[in-house]
Protein backbone atom coordinates (compact mmCIF):
# COMPACT_ATOMS: atom_id res chain seq x y z
CA UNK A 1 0.00 0.00 0.00
CA UNK A 2 1.14 3.51 -0.68
CA UNK A 3 2.90 4.77 2.51
CA UNK A 4 1.04 8.07 2.51
CA UNK A 5 -2.23 6.17 2.26
CA UNK A 6 -1.20 4.11 5.30
CA UNK A 7 -0.62 7.35 7.17
CA UNK A 8 -4.03 8.63 6.19
CA UNK A 9 -5.66 5.42 7.40
CA UNK A 10 -3.99 5.80 10.77
CA UNK A 11 -5.85 9.03 11.42
CA UNK A 12 -8.65 8.76 13.94
CA UNK A 13 -11.19 10.58 11.79
CA UNK A 14 -10.68 8.40 8.73
CA UNK A 15 -12.15 4.94 8.53
CA UNK A 16 -12.24 2.26 5.89
CA UNK A 17 -15.65 1.39 4.60
CA UNK A 18 -15.24 -2.27 5.44
CA UNK A 19 -14.13 -1.82 9.06
CA UNK A 20 -15.82 -0.54 12.18
CA UNK A 21 -15.12 3.03 13.08
CA UNK A 22 -12.79 3.52 16.01
CA UNK A 23 -15.19 3.83 18.92
CA UNK A 24 -14.62 7.28 20.44
CA UNK A 25 -15.65 6.25 23.95
CA UNK A 26 -15.71 2.97 25.83
CA UNK A 27 -18.95 1.10 25.25
CA UNK A 28 -21.34 -0.67 27.59
CA UNK A 29 -21.41 -4.44 27.17
CA UNK A 30 -24.96 -5.33 26.17
CA UNK A 31 -24.84 -8.71 27.86
CA UNK A 32 -25.58 -10.40 24.52
CA UNK A 33 -22.43 -11.68 22.85
CA UNK A 34 -24.06 -11.87 19.42
CA UNK A 35 -25.20 -8.27 19.66
CA UNK A 36 -21.89 -6.98 21.02
CA UNK A 37 -20.18 -8.58 18.03
CA UNK A 38 -22.31 -6.44 15.73
CA UNK A 39 -21.98 -3.18 17.67
CA UNK A 40 -19.02 -0.87 16.94
CA UNK A 41 -16.70 -0.95 19.95
CA UNK A 42 -18.32 -4.17 21.16
CA UNK A 43 -21.28 -2.74 23.08
CA UNK A 44 -23.85 -0.01 23.49
CA UNK A 45 -22.33 3.37 22.67
CA UNK A 46 -21.70 5.95 25.38
CA UNK A 47 -21.93 9.60 24.54
CA UNK A 48 -24.13 8.96 21.51
CA UNK A 49 -27.82 8.48 20.87
CA UNK A 50 -29.18 4.97 20.28
CA UNK A 51 -32.63 4.56 18.78
CA UNK A 52 -34.68 1.45 19.53
CA UNK A 53 -37.59 1.23 17.11
CA UNK A 54 -40.54 -1.05 17.79
CA UNK A 55 -43.96 -1.46 16.27
CA UNK A 56 -45.45 -2.27 19.67
CA UNK A 57 -44.28 -1.97 23.22
CA UNK A 58 -44.02 -5.07 25.34
CA UNK A 59 -42.05 -7.19 22.88
CA UNK A 60 -38.88 -7.19 24.95
CA UNK A 61 -37.43 -3.80 24.09
CA UNK A 62 -36.51 -3.20 27.73
CA UNK A 63 -35.32 -6.76 28.17
CA UNK A 64 -32.70 -5.94 25.55
CA UNK A 65 -31.26 -3.19 27.78
CA UNK A 66 -31.71 -4.78 31.19
CA UNK A 67 -28.37 -6.66 31.37
CA UNK A 68 -26.45 -3.46 30.62
CA UNK A 69 -28.57 -1.41 33.03
CA UNK A 70 -28.17 -4.05 35.75
CA UNK A 71 -24.39 -3.91 35.36
CA UNK A 72 -24.38 -0.11 35.58
CA UNK A 73 -26.57 0.09 38.67
CA UNK A 74 -24.62 -2.73 40.33
CA UNK A 75 -21.55 -0.51 39.93
CA UNK A 76 -23.42 2.30 41.69
CA UNK A 77 -24.05 4.28 38.51
CA UNK A 78 -27.27 6.12 37.93
CA UNK A 79 -29.88 5.19 35.33
CA UNK A 80 -32.61 7.67 34.53
CA UNK A 81 -35.98 7.02 32.89
CA UNK A 82 -37.53 10.10 31.29
CA UNK A 83 -41.28 10.06 30.64
CA UNK A 84 -41.72 6.27 30.93
CA UNK A 85 -44.97 5.15 29.24
CA UNK A 86 -46.42 3.34 32.28
CA UNK A 87 -45.98 3.02 36.01
CA UNK A 88 -42.77 1.21 36.94
CA UNK A 89 -43.35 -1.97 38.91
CA UNK A 90 -40.53 -2.00 41.43
CA UNK A 91 -40.41 -5.77 42.18
CA UNK A 92 -39.94 -6.54 38.48
CA UNK A 93 -37.06 -4.07 38.06
CA UNK A 94 -35.42 -5.42 41.20
CA UNK A 95 -35.88 -8.99 39.99
CA UNK A 96 -34.19 -8.02 36.72
CA UNK A 97 -31.08 -7.15 38.72
CA UNK A 98 -31.51 -3.39 38.75
CA UNK A 99 -30.40 -1.74 41.97
CA UNK A 100 -33.43 0.44 42.59
CA UNK A 101 -31.49 3.06 44.58
CA UNK A 102 -29.61 3.85 41.38
CA UNK A 103 -32.80 4.40 39.36
CA UNK A 104 -34.36 7.85 38.90
CA UNK A 105 -37.70 8.53 37.24
CA UNK A 106 -38.59 11.85 35.68
CA UNK A 107 -42.30 12.27 34.96
CA UNK A 108 -42.80 15.63 33.26
CA UNK A 109 -46.33 16.69 32.49
CA UNK A 110 -45.61 18.91 29.50
CA UNK A 111 -43.78 17.59 26.41
CA UNK A 112 -41.54 20.67 26.46
CA UNK A 113 -40.41 19.83 29.99
CA UNK A 114 -39.70 16.25 28.97
CA UNK A 115 -37.40 17.40 26.19
CA UNK A 116 -35.67 19.84 28.52
CA UNK A 117 -35.22 17.15 31.19
CA UNK A 118 -33.91 14.74 28.54
CA UNK A 119 -31.28 17.20 27.34
CA UNK A 120 -30.22 18.04 30.89
CA UNK A 121 -30.01 14.38 31.93
CA UNK A 122 -27.98 13.47 28.85
CA UNK A 123 -25.62 16.41 29.41
CA UNK A 124 -25.07 15.47 33.04
CA UNK A 125 -21.93 13.47 33.58
CA UNK A 126 -23.53 11.93 36.66
CA UNK A 127 -26.05 9.84 34.70
CA UNK A 128 -24.62 6.64 33.23
CA UNK A 129 -27.63 5.81 31.05
CA UNK A 130 -30.78 7.69 30.12
CA UNK A 131 -33.88 6.04 28.67
CA UNK A 132 -36.27 8.26 26.78
CA UNK A 133 -39.86 7.92 25.64
CA UNK A 134 -40.55 11.21 23.92
CA UNK A 135 -42.50 10.48 20.74
CA UNK A 136 -45.73 9.56 22.48
CA UNK A 137 -45.70 12.75 24.57
CA UNK A 138 -45.30 14.80 21.41
CA UNK A 139 -47.90 12.65 19.61
CA UNK A 140 -45.29 11.56 17.11
CA UNK A 141 -44.31 15.14 16.31
CA UNK A 142 -40.94 15.66 17.95
CA UNK A 143 -39.90 19.27 17.36
CA UNK A 144 -37.43 19.69 14.53
CA UNK A 145 -33.84 19.44 15.66
CA UNK A 146 -34.67 17.79 18.99
CA UNK A 147 -32.86 14.58 18.04
CA UNK A 148 -29.85 16.65 17.08
CA UNK A 149 -30.00 18.38 20.48
CA UNK A 150 -30.24 15.02 22.23
CA UNK A 151 -27.29 13.67 20.25
CA UNK A 152 -25.16 16.72 21.12
CA UNK A 153 -26.21 16.51 24.79
CA UNK A 154 -25.33 12.80 24.89
CA UNK A 155 -21.90 13.67 23.52
CA UNK A 156 -21.36 16.17 26.34
CA UNK A 157 -22.50 13.86 29.14
CA UNK A 158 -20.89 10.70 27.84
CA UNK A 159 -23.50 8.26 29.15
CA UNK A 160 -25.65 5.76 27.30
CA UNK A 161 -28.68 7.37 25.63
CA UNK A 162 -31.53 5.12 24.57
CA UNK A 163 -34.53 6.52 22.77
CA UNK A 164 -37.58 4.26 22.33
CA UNK A 165 -39.39 5.21 19.14
CA UNK A 166 -42.16 3.89 16.91
CA UNK A 167 -41.14 1.68 14.00
CA UNK A 168 -42.79 3.96 11.41
CA UNK A 169 -39.77 6.24 11.83
CA UNK A 170 -37.35 3.57 10.56
CA UNK A 171 -37.11 5.26 7.18
CA UNK A 172 -36.82 8.80 8.60
CA UNK A 173 -33.44 10.50 8.77
CA UNK A 174 -31.86 10.62 12.21
CA UNK A 175 -28.63 11.96 13.70
CA UNK A 176 -28.42 8.91 16.00
CA UNK A 177 -25.32 6.91 15.05
CA UNK A 178 -26.95 3.65 16.11
CA UNK A 179 -30.49 2.61 15.16
CA UNK A 180 -32.02 -0.77 15.87
CA UNK A 181 -35.35 -2.17 14.82
CA UNK A 182 -36.79 -4.72 17.22
CA UNK A 183 -39.38 -7.38 16.42
CA UNK A 184 -40.81 -10.24 18.45
CA UNK A 185 -39.77 -13.71 17.34
CA UNK A 186 -41.46 -16.10 19.70
CA UNK A 187 -39.32 -16.41 22.79
CA UNK A 188 -36.56 -14.50 21.06
CA UNK A 189 -36.11 -10.94 19.94
CA UNK A 190 -35.22 -10.10 16.35
CA UNK A 191 -32.77 -7.21 16.14
CA UNK A 192 -32.11 -5.50 12.83
CA UNK A 193 -29.31 -2.94 12.81
CA UNK A 194 -30.69 -0.20 10.59
CA UNK A 195 -27.66 2.02 11.08
CA UNK A 196 -24.33 1.80 12.81
CA UNK A 197 -20.92 3.40 12.53
CA UNK A 198 -19.24 0.95 10.24
CA UNK A 199 -20.27 -1.42 7.46
CA UNK A 200 -24.02 -1.99 7.18
CA UNK A 201 -25.27 -5.10 8.96
CA UNK A 202 -26.37 -7.77 6.52
CA UNK A 203 -29.00 -9.68 8.42
CA UNK A 204 -31.00 -9.49 11.58
CA UNK A 205 -29.85 -11.35 14.67
CA UNK A 206 -32.01 -13.32 17.06
CA UNK A 207 -31.35 -12.81 20.75
CA UNK A 208 -32.43 -14.90 23.72
CA UNK A 209 -33.72 -12.26 26.07
CA UNK A 210 -35.31 -12.97 29.44
CA UNK A 211 -38.97 -13.87 29.03
CA UNK A 212 -41.47 -14.39 31.83
CA UNK A 213 -42.54 -17.79 30.51
CA UNK A 214 -41.70 -20.41 27.95
CA UNK A 215 -43.02 -19.78 24.49
CA UNK A 216 -44.97 -22.92 23.99
CA UNK A 217 -48.47 -22.91 22.56
CA UNK A 218 -48.99 -26.38 24.04
CA UNK A 219 -48.52 -25.05 27.54
CA UNK A 220 -50.86 -22.20 26.82
CA UNK A 221 -53.44 -24.72 25.71
CA UNK A 222 -53.12 -26.64 28.94
CA UNK A 223 -53.36 -23.44 30.92
CA UNK A 224 -56.35 -22.36 28.96
CA UNK A 225 -57.82 -25.76 29.64
CA UNK A 226 -57.60 -25.19 33.36
CA UNK A 227 -59.23 -21.83 32.94
CA UNK A 228 -62.13 -22.76 30.84
CA UNK A 229 -64.13 -24.83 33.31
CA UNK A 230 -63.75 -22.09 35.85
CA UNK A 231 -64.87 -19.48 33.34
CA UNK A 232 -67.78 -21.68 32.36
CA UNK A 233 -68.55 -22.00 36.03
CA UNK A 234 -68.71 -18.25 36.44
CA UNK A 235 -71.01 -17.98 33.42
CA UNK A 236 -73.31 -20.49 35.03
CA UNK A 237 -73.34 -18.31 38.10
CA UNK A 238 -74.35 -15.29 36.03
CA UNK A 239 -77.19 -17.23 34.55
CA UNK A 240 -78.33 -18.18 38.00
CA UNK A 241 -78.09 -14.56 39.08
CA UNK A 242 -80.04 -13.49 35.97
Amino acid sequence: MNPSLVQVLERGDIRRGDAFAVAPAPTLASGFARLDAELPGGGWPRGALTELLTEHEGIGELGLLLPALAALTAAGQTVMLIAPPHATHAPAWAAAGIRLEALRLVLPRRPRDALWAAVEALRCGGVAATLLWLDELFRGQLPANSLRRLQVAAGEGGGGAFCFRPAQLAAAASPAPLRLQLQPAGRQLRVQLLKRRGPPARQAILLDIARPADFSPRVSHVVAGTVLPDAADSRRRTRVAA
Partner: protein
Amino acid sequence: MAFPTPALACWAGRFTPQVNLAPAALRLEISGSLRLFGGLPALLQRVCEDLAAMDLRAQLAVAATPLAALWLARVGGNVIARDLAATRAALAAVPLTALQLAPPLARRIEGFGLRRIGELLALPRASLGARLGKPFVIDLARALGEIADPQSCFVFPEHFEQGLELPAPVAAAPVLLFAAHRLVAALAGWLAARNSAVREIEWLIDHGHGRTTVLPLAFSAPVYRAERIERVLKERLDALSLSAPALALRLCAPQAEPREARNHALFDGGGQRQEALAELMDRLVARLGPQAVQGLACHADHRPELASRSEPGLPAFRLPALPPRPLWLLNPPEALREVQGRPQRGGALALMAGPERIESGWWDGGDARRDYFIAIDSAGRWLWIFRDPRLPGGWFLHGIFS
Protein backbone atom coordinates in the same frame (compact mmCIF):
# COMPACT_ATOMS: atom_id res chain seq x y z
CA MET B 1 -18.08 51.97 47.03
CA ALA B 2 -20.42 54.43 48.61
CA PHE B 3 -22.52 52.30 50.93
CA PRO B 4 -20.99 49.00 51.87
CA THR B 5 -23.74 46.94 53.45
CA PRO B 6 -23.70 43.90 55.72
CA ALA B 7 -24.62 41.88 52.61
CA LEU B 8 -21.43 43.08 50.97
CA ALA B 9 -19.42 42.24 54.08
CA CYS B 10 -20.92 38.76 53.88
CA TRP B 11 -19.82 38.47 50.26
CA ALA B 12 -16.28 39.42 51.27
CA GLY B 13 -16.31 36.41 53.58
CA ARG B 14 -15.61 34.42 50.48
CA PHE B 15 -12.07 35.80 50.46
CA THR B 16 -11.29 36.04 54.16
CA PRO B 17 -13.10 35.73 57.46
CA GLN B 18 -11.43 38.99 58.58
CA VAL B 19 -13.55 41.73 57.09
CA ASN B 20 -13.81 45.29 58.37
CA LEU B 21 -16.88 47.29 57.46
CA ALA B 22 -15.84 50.98 57.50
CA PRO B 23 -18.22 53.89 56.78
CA ALA B 24 -17.32 54.10 53.13
CA ALA B 25 -15.03 51.19 52.64
CA LEU B 26 -14.70 47.47 53.04
CA ARG B 27 -11.36 46.18 54.23
CA LEU B 28 -10.25 42.59 53.80
CA GLU B 29 -7.28 41.05 55.58
CA ILE B 30 -6.05 38.84 52.76
CA SER B 31 -2.55 37.80 53.80
CA GLY B 32 -3.92 34.44 54.96
CA SER B 33 -5.90 33.87 51.73
CA LEU B 34 -3.24 34.45 49.11
CA ARG B 35 -2.19 30.84 48.85
CA LEU B 36 -5.75 29.56 48.70
CA PHE B 37 -6.54 31.81 45.77
CA GLY B 38 -3.26 31.24 43.96
CA GLY B 39 -1.57 34.55 44.64
CA LEU B 40 -2.49 38.20 44.83
CA PRO B 41 -3.18 38.83 41.12
CA ALA B 42 -5.57 35.86 40.99
CA LEU B 43 -7.35 36.98 44.15
CA LEU B 44 -7.73 40.54 42.87
CA GLN B 45 -9.01 39.18 39.59
CA ARG B 46 -11.74 37.26 41.46
CA VAL B 47 -12.66 40.33 43.51
CA CYS B 48 -13.00 42.39 40.33
CA GLU B 49 -15.05 39.72 38.58
CA ASP B 50 -17.40 39.41 41.53
CA LEU B 51 -17.87 43.16 41.78
CA ALA B 52 -18.55 43.41 38.06
CA ALA B 53 -21.08 40.56 38.26
CA MET B 54 -22.84 42.41 41.08
CA ASP B 55 -22.71 45.58 39.02
CA LEU B 56 -20.74 47.40 41.71
CA ARG B 57 -17.92 49.83 41.13
CA ALA B 58 -15.10 50.09 43.62
CA GLN B 59 -11.64 51.58 44.00
CA LEU B 60 -9.26 48.86 45.05
CA ALA B 61 -5.98 49.28 46.85
CA VAL B 62 -3.68 46.80 48.51
CA ALA B 63 -1.38 47.94 51.31
CA ALA B 64 0.50 46.53 54.26
CA THR B 65 -1.59 48.42 56.83
CA PRO B 66 -5.36 48.95 57.05
CA LEU B 67 -5.12 52.73 57.22
CA ALA B 68 -2.79 52.98 54.26
CA ALA B 69 -5.13 50.75 52.24
CA LEU B 70 -8.04 53.04 53.10
CA TRP B 71 -6.17 56.23 52.16
CA LEU B 72 -4.83 54.73 48.94
CA ALA B 73 -8.30 53.51 47.95
CA ARG B 74 -9.79 56.95 48.66
CA VAL B 75 -7.52 58.63 46.16
CA GLY B 76 -8.53 56.34 43.35
CA GLY B 77 -7.10 52.96 44.18
CA ASN B 78 -5.27 50.88 41.61
CA VAL B 79 -2.30 50.73 43.94
CA ILE B 80 -0.68 47.55 45.09
CA ALA B 81 1.82 47.89 47.92
CA ARG B 82 2.70 44.46 49.19
CA ASP B 83 5.11 45.36 52.01
CA LEU B 84 5.82 48.25 54.37
CA ALA B 85 8.50 49.81 52.18
CA ALA B 86 6.19 49.83 49.17
CA THR B 87 3.36 51.14 51.33
CA ARG B 88 5.53 54.01 52.57
CA ALA B 89 6.53 54.82 49.01
CA ALA B 90 2.93 54.72 47.80
CA LEU B 91 1.70 56.88 50.68
CA ALA B 92 4.24 59.60 49.85
CA ALA B 93 2.23 60.56 46.78
CA VAL B 94 -1.15 60.58 48.55
CA PRO B 95 -2.67 64.06 48.91
CA LEU B 96 -3.46 65.01 52.49
CA THR B 97 -7.14 65.46 51.61
CA ALA B 98 -7.40 61.66 51.49
CA LEU B 99 -6.90 61.59 55.25
CA GLN B 100 -10.25 63.37 55.72
CA LEU B 101 -8.93 65.31 58.68
CA ALA B 102 -11.06 67.57 60.85
CA PRO B 103 -11.29 71.01 59.10
CA PRO B 104 -9.24 73.01 61.68
CA LEU B 105 -6.41 70.50 61.46
CA ALA B 106 -6.62 70.36 57.68
CA ARG B 107 -6.44 74.19 57.50
CA ARG B 108 -3.44 74.27 59.80
CA ILE B 109 -1.54 71.73 57.66
CA GLU B 110 -2.48 73.65 54.55
CA GLY B 111 -1.08 76.72 56.23
CA PHE B 112 2.30 74.98 56.38
CA GLY B 113 2.15 74.64 52.62
CA LEU B 114 2.03 70.85 52.76
CA ARG B 115 0.10 68.96 50.06
CA ARG B 116 1.16 65.33 50.21
CA ILE B 117 1.95 62.79 52.88
CA GLY B 118 5.49 62.54 51.54
CA GLU B 119 6.16 66.20 52.35
CA LEU B 120 4.81 65.64 55.83
CA LEU B 121 7.06 62.66 56.41
CA ALA B 122 10.11 64.71 55.47
CA LEU B 123 9.60 66.82 58.58
CA PRO B 124 10.91 65.75 62.01
CA ARG B 125 8.23 63.60 63.67
CA ALA B 126 8.63 65.18 67.15
CA SER B 127 7.81 68.66 65.89
CA LEU B 128 4.79 67.27 63.98
CA GLY B 129 3.41 65.94 67.26
CA ALA B 130 3.86 69.28 68.95
CA ARG B 131 2.22 71.25 66.13
CA LEU B 132 -0.54 68.91 64.86
CA GLY B 133 -1.40 66.87 67.95
CA LYS B 134 -0.61 63.40 69.14
CA PRO B 135 -3.59 61.56 67.57
CA PHE B 136 -2.53 62.67 64.11
CA VAL B 137 1.01 61.41 64.58
CA ILE B 138 -0.32 58.10 65.91
CA ASP B 139 -2.47 57.69 62.77
CA LEU B 140 0.55 58.37 60.64
CA ALA B 141 2.56 55.75 62.53
CA ARG B 142 -0.30 53.26 62.11
CA ALA B 143 -0.45 53.87 58.38
CA LEU B 144 3.29 53.31 58.13
CA GLY B 145 3.09 50.15 60.21
CA GLU B 146 5.24 51.55 62.98
CA ILE B 147 2.63 50.71 65.56
CA ALA B 148 -0.11 48.06 65.50
CA ASP B 149 -3.54 49.00 64.23
CA PRO B 150 -6.01 46.27 65.18
CA GLN B 151 -9.36 46.51 63.42
CA SER B 152 -12.74 45.39 64.59
CA CYS B 153 -13.87 42.45 62.48
CA PHE B 154 -17.28 42.18 60.92
CA VAL B 155 -19.19 39.55 62.86
CA PHE B 156 -20.79 37.14 60.43
CA PRO B 157 -24.31 36.71 61.81
CA GLU B 158 -25.48 33.41 63.24
CA HIS B 159 -28.31 33.19 60.72
CA PHE B 160 -28.13 34.54 57.23
CA GLU B 161 -30.87 36.95 56.26
CA GLN B 162 -30.25 39.69 53.76
CA GLY B 163 -32.50 41.62 51.46
CA LEU B 164 -32.49 44.31 48.88
CA GLU B 165 -34.94 46.71 47.30
CA LEU B 166 -35.38 46.28 43.57
CA PRO B 167 -34.59 49.45 41.58
CA ALA B 168 -37.88 49.02 39.70
CA PRO B 169 -40.84 46.66 40.16
CA VAL B 170 -40.19 43.32 38.46
CA ALA B 171 -43.11 41.51 36.85
CA ALA B 172 -41.34 38.53 35.28
CA ALA B 173 -39.88 36.04 37.71
CA PRO B 174 -36.78 35.15 35.64
CA VAL B 175 -35.69 38.80 35.81
CA LEU B 176 -35.32 38.41 39.59
CA LEU B 177 -32.27 36.26 38.96
CA PHE B 178 -30.15 39.36 38.42
CA ALA B 179 -31.08 40.92 41.74
CA ALA B 180 -30.82 37.53 43.41
CA HIS B 181 -27.21 37.31 42.27
CA ARG B 182 -26.03 39.81 44.89
CA LEU B 183 -27.81 37.97 47.66
CA VAL B 184 -26.48 34.61 46.54
CA ALA B 185 -22.97 36.09 46.46
CA ALA B 186 -23.52 37.34 50.01
CA LEU B 187 -24.78 33.93 51.11
CA ALA B 188 -21.84 32.14 49.50
CA GLY B 189 -19.41 34.49 51.25
CA TRP B 190 -21.18 34.02 54.57
CA LEU B 191 -21.04 30.23 54.12
CA ALA B 192 -17.34 30.40 53.22
CA ALA B 193 -16.48 32.55 56.25
CA ARG B 194 -18.34 30.15 58.55
CA ASN B 195 -17.11 27.06 56.67
CA SER B 196 -20.66 25.80 56.45
CA ALA B 197 -23.20 24.69 53.85
CA VAL B 198 -26.99 24.75 53.47
CA ARG B 199 -29.58 22.20 52.45
CA GLU B 200 -32.42 24.67 52.10
CA ILE B 201 -32.81 28.36 51.63
CA GLU B 202 -35.87 30.55 51.44
CA TRP B 203 -36.56 33.42 49.13
CA LEU B 204 -39.10 36.03 50.14
CA ILE B 205 -40.47 38.04 47.26
CA ASP B 206 -42.12 41.20 48.55
CA HIS B 207 -45.00 42.55 46.46
CA GLY B 208 -45.81 45.47 48.77
CA HIS B 209 -49.07 45.88 50.73
CA GLY B 210 -47.85 43.15 53.06
CA ARG B 211 -48.02 40.50 50.37
CA THR B 212 -45.09 38.15 50.12
CA THR B 213 -44.33 35.09 48.02
CA VAL B 214 -42.28 32.51 49.85
CA LEU B 215 -40.08 30.45 47.58
CA PRO B 216 -38.28 27.64 49.37
CA LEU B 217 -35.38 26.01 47.56
CA ALA B 218 -34.18 22.61 48.73
CA PHE B 219 -30.99 20.82 47.75
CA SER B 220 -30.39 17.10 47.81
CA ALA B 221 -26.96 17.63 49.33
CA PRO B 222 -25.46 20.53 51.30
CA VAL B 223 -24.37 23.28 48.92
CA TYR B 224 -22.10 26.27 49.36
CA ARG B 225 -21.09 27.39 45.88
CA ALA B 226 -22.89 30.42 44.47
CA GLU B 227 -22.99 29.01 40.92
CA ARG B 228 -24.64 25.83 42.10
CA ILE B 229 -27.32 27.71 44.07
CA GLU B 230 -27.98 30.05 41.17
CA ARG B 231 -28.42 27.30 38.60
CA VAL B 232 -31.15 25.70 40.73
CA LEU B 233 -32.74 29.07 41.43
CA LYS B 234 -32.82 29.80 37.71
CA GLU B 235 -34.94 26.72 36.98
CA ARG B 236 -37.29 27.60 39.84
CA LEU B 237 -37.71 31.18 38.64
CA ASP B 238 -38.19 30.06 35.03
CA ALA B 239 -41.13 27.93 36.13
CA LEU B 240 -42.62 30.61 38.40
CA SER B 241 -45.17 33.25 37.51
CA LEU B 242 -45.50 36.15 39.92
CA SER B 243 -48.92 37.05 41.29
CA ALA B 244 -47.89 40.72 41.43
CA PRO B 245 -44.77 42.72 40.57
CA ALA B 246 -41.92 42.24 43.01
CA LEU B 247 -40.58 45.24 44.90
CA ALA B 248 -37.98 43.65 47.13
CA LEU B 249 -36.15 40.40 47.54
CA ARG B 250 -34.94 38.68 50.67
CA LEU B 251 -32.84 35.57 51.16
CA CYS B 252 -32.82 33.54 54.38
CA ALA B 253 -30.78 30.51 55.30
CA PRO B 254 -32.38 29.38 58.53
CA GLN B 255 -30.13 26.41 59.03
CA ALA B 256 -26.52 26.02 58.04
CA GLU B 257 -24.50 22.94 58.79
CA PRO B 258 -20.74 22.50 59.04
CA ARG B 259 -19.19 21.78 55.69
CA GLU B 260 -17.97 18.23 55.35
CA ALA B 261 -14.27 17.82 55.07
CA ARG B 262 -13.44 17.22 51.44
CA ASN B 263 -13.09 13.50 51.18
CA HIS B 264 -10.94 11.81 48.63
CA ALA B 265 -13.91 10.63 46.61
CA LEU B 266 -14.39 14.23 45.55
CA PHE B 267 -11.14 14.18 43.70
CA ASP B 268 -11.78 11.11 41.60
CA GLY B 269 -14.47 10.72 38.98
CA GLY B 270 -16.97 9.24 41.44
CA GLY B 271 -17.23 12.39 43.51
CA GLN B 272 -17.65 14.60 40.48
CA ARG B 273 -20.35 12.33 39.12
CA GLN B 274 -22.14 12.45 42.46
CA GLU B 275 -22.04 16.19 42.56
CA ALA B 276 -23.18 16.55 38.94
CA LEU B 277 -26.07 14.18 39.64
CA ALA B 278 -27.10 16.00 42.82
CA GLU B 279 -27.18 19.27 40.92
CA LEU B 280 -29.20 17.74 38.08
CA MET B 281 -31.76 16.37 40.53
CA ASP B 282 -32.06 19.75 42.25
CA ARG B 283 -32.61 21.51 38.95
CA LEU B 284 -35.18 18.94 37.80
CA VAL B 285 -37.10 19.37 41.05
CA ALA B 286 -36.86 23.15 40.87
CA ARG B 287 -38.32 23.22 37.38
CA LEU B 288 -40.71 20.26 37.26
CA GLY B 289 -41.81 20.13 40.89
CA PRO B 290 -40.95 17.50 43.48
CA GLN B 291 -43.68 15.07 42.37
CA ALA B 292 -42.18 14.79 38.88
CA VAL B 293 -38.82 13.48 40.07
CA GLN B 294 -38.96 10.13 41.78
CA GLY B 295 -36.96 7.18 42.90
CA LEU B 296 -38.20 3.63 42.98
CA ALA B 297 -38.40 1.19 45.86
CA CYS B 298 -40.20 -2.01 46.67
CA HIS B 299 -42.98 -2.05 49.20
CA ALA B 300 -44.08 -5.19 50.99
CA ASP B 301 -47.61 -5.62 49.69
CA HIS B 302 -48.90 -8.55 47.70
CA ARG B 303 -51.13 -6.31 45.64
CA PRO B 304 -48.97 -5.42 42.62
CA GLU B 305 -50.37 -1.88 42.43
CA LEU B 306 -49.07 -1.24 45.96
CA ALA B 307 -45.70 -2.95 45.62
CA SER B 308 -43.86 0.13 44.32
CA ARG B 309 -42.96 3.30 46.18
CA SER B 310 -41.49 6.46 44.76
CA GLU B 311 -39.12 6.86 47.67
CA PRO B 312 -36.91 4.47 49.54
CA GLY B 313 -39.04 3.28 52.42
CA LEU B 314 -37.92 0.73 54.96
CA PRO B 315 -34.35 -0.22 54.24
CA ALA B 316 -33.31 -3.68 53.16
CA PHE B 317 -36.74 -4.99 52.32
CA ARG B 318 -36.05 -8.53 51.21
CA LEU B 319 -38.01 -9.61 48.20
CA PRO B 320 -39.69 -12.95 48.46
CA ALA B 321 -39.06 -15.01 45.35
CA LEU B 322 -42.02 -14.10 43.18
CA PRO B 323 -43.11 -15.55 39.88
CA PRO B 324 -42.23 -13.24 36.96
CA ARG B 325 -43.55 -9.71 37.30
CA PRO B 326 -43.98 -7.11 34.54
CA LEU B 327 -41.77 -4.01 34.37
CA TRP B 328 -44.75 -1.80 33.53
CA LEU B 329 -48.02 -1.71 35.42
CA LEU B 330 -51.23 -0.25 34.04
CA ASN B 331 -53.06 1.94 36.47
CA PRO B 332 -55.99 1.37 36.43
CA PRO B 333 -56.01 -2.07 34.81
CA GLU B 334 -57.51 -2.18 31.33
CA ALA B 335 -60.71 -4.24 31.04
CA LEU B 336 -60.50 -6.97 28.37
CA ARG B 337 -63.28 -8.62 26.43
CA GLU B 338 -63.80 -12.34 26.72
CA VAL B 339 -64.89 -14.60 23.88
CA GLN B 340 -65.57 -18.24 24.59
CA GLY B 341 -63.74 -18.06 27.87
CA ARG B 342 -60.61 -16.57 26.23
CA PRO B 343 -59.48 -13.00 26.96
CA GLN B 344 -59.17 -10.78 23.90
CA ARG B 345 -56.95 -7.87 22.93
CA GLY B 346 -56.75 -7.46 19.19
CA GLY B 347 -57.58 -11.13 18.91
CA ALA B 348 -57.49 -13.97 21.40
CA LEU B 349 -54.62 -13.91 23.85
CA ALA B 350 -52.51 -17.03 24.19
CA LEU B 351 -51.97 -17.89 27.84
CA MET B 352 -48.37 -18.89 28.49
CA ALA B 353 -48.34 -19.41 32.24
CA GLY B 354 -50.67 -19.24 35.19
CA PRO B 355 -52.80 -18.99 37.08
CA GLU B 356 -51.04 -17.37 39.99
CA ARG B 357 -53.55 -16.44 42.65
CA ILE B 358 -52.90 -13.17 44.48
CA GLU B 359 -55.14 -12.60 47.44
CA SER B 360 -54.57 -9.71 49.75
CA GLY B 361 -55.79 -6.53 51.29
CA TRP B 362 -58.86 -7.82 53.11
CA TRP B 363 -57.60 -6.06 56.24
CA ASP B 364 -57.63 -2.56 54.76
CA GLY B 365 -60.67 -2.72 52.52
CA GLY B 366 -58.54 -3.04 49.36
CA ASP B 367 -59.71 -6.60 49.01
CA ALA B 368 -58.17 -8.27 45.98
CA ARG B 369 -58.45 -11.85 44.81
CA ARG B 370 -57.08 -12.35 41.34
CA ASP B 371 -55.81 -15.12 39.13
CA TYR B 372 -52.90 -13.85 37.06
CA PHE B 373 -51.73 -15.24 33.72
CA ILE B 374 -48.87 -14.44 31.40
CA ALA B 375 -50.25 -14.01 27.90
CA ILE B 376 -49.04 -13.12 24.41
CA ASP B 377 -51.12 -11.20 21.93
CA SER B 378 -51.05 -11.57 18.18
CA ALA B 379 -48.45 -8.76 17.90
CA GLY B 380 -46.03 -10.61 20.17
CA ARG B 381 -46.54 -8.47 23.26
CA TRP B 382 -45.95 -10.18 26.59
CA LEU B 383 -48.81 -9.21 28.87
CA TRP B 384 -49.78 -9.78 32.47
CA ILE B 385 -53.51 -10.27 32.76
CA PHE B 386 -55.78 -11.27 35.59
CA ARG B 387 -59.25 -12.40 36.21
CA ASP B 388 -61.27 -11.88 39.31
CA PRO B 389 -62.67 -15.35 39.97
CA ARG B 390 -65.72 -13.78 41.61
CA LEU B 391 -66.61 -11.59 38.61
CA PRO B 392 -67.83 -13.34 35.48
CA GLY B 393 -65.68 -12.60 32.46
CA GLY B 394 -63.72 -10.07 34.47
CA TRP B 395 -60.44 -10.11 32.54
CA PHE B 396 -58.06 -7.22 32.96
CA LEU B 397 -54.69 -6.26 31.50
CA HIS B 398 -52.54 -5.24 34.45
CA GLY B 399 -48.99 -5.17 33.20
CA ILE B 400 -46.59 -5.32 30.28
CA PHE B 401 -43.42 -7.37 30.55
CA SER B 402 -41.49 -5.46 27.92
